[in-house]
């Protein structure tokens, strides 16, 4: 979405294809044109993501006013509709309130209202429920699923919680040290993990079946991104690692016998699968 902080980060290579256009090579200004109308985003911390000195009505109405040149009254009415739609109780009154007067879940609802205002085709949700309690998390995820069913928008859900992803997503990409290490449908990836990191993650989660037993964590700790190990970045923590893993970086591949679309970046996926 061209939101990277300008002096600190930039796109070093690669392409971002959105409807045939390569956003990575377009100027920031043009990409921002797509924001909200085509691609929208919600963030992890709904309190810091809302401007504390403007009423929520102002903030939700802003896309209509600035992007569509709508009059104040009309934009305000549309904002009210949206707030009702995402389930803000007593919206007529609360539209004049400021972000700090809302609970965490309600703030995230307001963020969602803002994001879907201009009917985007793609919603990027970056850890949308990480800062919320489980019961509220459930409500927000349900809201997102309902909105998706209603509008047909695509959604990229970024999360550290395998459970949250499993509930909502159809396909998943597992990332480690800045790379996608495995990708496929949720069921394929969760039931037949082909990358040792995915396996390790799934084994690490305490579940009903292993109460009283020891958990099987991944050994070691996540690598320093400034000094990634040579070869496969996971090899120091990997029980399957051999010599080739220490020298050659594995590409994403789809070995024989896998369902199409299920790929992993591991030299020894066959062995990993056989172990499962």
């Amino acid at each position, binding site marked *: 979405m061209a939101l990277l902080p300008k002096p600190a980060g930039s796109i070093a290579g690669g392409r971002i294809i959105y409807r045939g256009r390569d956003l990575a090579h377009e100027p920031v200004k043009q990409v921002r044109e797509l924001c909200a109308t085509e691609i929208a985003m919600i963030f992890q911390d709904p309190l*810091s993501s809302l401007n504390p000195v403007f009423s929520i009505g102002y903030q939700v109405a802003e896309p209509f006013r600035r992007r569509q040149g709508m009059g104040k009254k009309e934009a305000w009415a549309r904002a009210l509709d949206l707030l009702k739609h995402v389930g803000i109780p007593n919206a007529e009154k609360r539209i004049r309130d400021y972000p700090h007067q809302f609970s965490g879940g309600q703030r995230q609802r307001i963020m969602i209202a803002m994001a879907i205002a201009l009917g985007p085709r793609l919603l990027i949700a970056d850890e949308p429920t990480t800062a919320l309690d489980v019961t509220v998390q459930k409500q927000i995820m349900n809201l997102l699923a309902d909105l998706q069913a209603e509008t047909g928008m695509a959604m990229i859900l970024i999360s550290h919680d395998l459970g949250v992803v499993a509930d909502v997503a159809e396909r998943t990409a597992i990332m480690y040290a800045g790379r996608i290490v495995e990708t496929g449908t949720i069921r394929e990836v969760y039931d037949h993990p082909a990358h040792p990191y995915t396996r390790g993650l799934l084994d690490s989660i305490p579940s009903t079946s292993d109460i009283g037993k020891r958990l099987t964590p991944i050994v070691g700790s996540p690598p320093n991104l400034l000094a990634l190990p040579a070869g496969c970045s996971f090899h120091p923590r990997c029980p399957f690692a051999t010599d080739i893993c220490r020298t050659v970086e594995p590409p994403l591949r789809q070995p024989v016998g896998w369902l199409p679309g299920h790929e992993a970046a591991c030299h020894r996926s066959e062995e990993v699968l056989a172990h499962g």
Partner: protein
Amino acid sequence: MCVLGYVLRRLLLAVFVLWGVATVVFIVVRMVPADPALLIAGETATPQQLAALRHDMGLDQPLILQYLQYLGKAVVGDFGNSYLQSVPAMFLIGQVLPNTALLAVLACALALVVSFPLGLIAALRVNGLADRAVTTSSLVVQALPGFWVGVVLLLIFSRTLKWLPSAGLTNAQSLILPAIVLALPFIAILTRLTRSGLLEVVGEGYIQTARAKGLAERTVIFPHAIRNATIPIVTVVGLEFGTLLGGAVITETVFSFPGSDGCWSRPSRPATTTSPRPASSSSPSPSSSSTCSSTCSTPTSIRE
């Protein structure tokens, strides 16, 4: 409704603060080992004359009584007479305070008008040439002593170029130089504050949200970032305005400006000060009179 209640509560609190200040001033003045009667009557006065004078001024009464009288009169706005000029203290202040206030308001306005764009430019081009120029010069400006800058400006614009009057308050032009001198350090502070405030705000989540809404960068800064960045600025301006009123004394001396400076000290009797006698006070802060007397010599040499 909520805001009104808040303002009323703060005003109520301000009454307590004023009372506290008045009490502290009263106590400090009593503790100073100087006898106002002796000061007025002079070294040659007889003990009888001094006693009579003290009686006149109520200084022979018990402290607590003096204090209560002082408070009682202060409540109705009577701060007694100046020890030195024998006219009501309020009258003296009323004569000169408007000039000082005018100068302070002018300096404040000037500082805001200049510092805001400077800070904005610096923040939008972090570590760029403009940013470095602004931050460096603000540092230098803040380090320059006000009386020195005043004198230099006087030499340039009044003596050499003869564009502006050098002393007194005769027309609007004579406000220009004092206001600039007074505003300069304030400009430096506000510029840096605007810059750092904006930089801090731009890193916040809601700025990212504003960008994600596809707003133009101009709209992201105005009003989203600015409105948040102004919060500390308003606080500092409020606090610094008081300092500006006090700091005006030095500047006024340099420019022989008829402000409150004349109220605290006279060229003929540089070490004097009004002090609250029983039931009278013009509450000068001791520091402002002492800094003044130490710097008074500079302007006199210029005026010759």
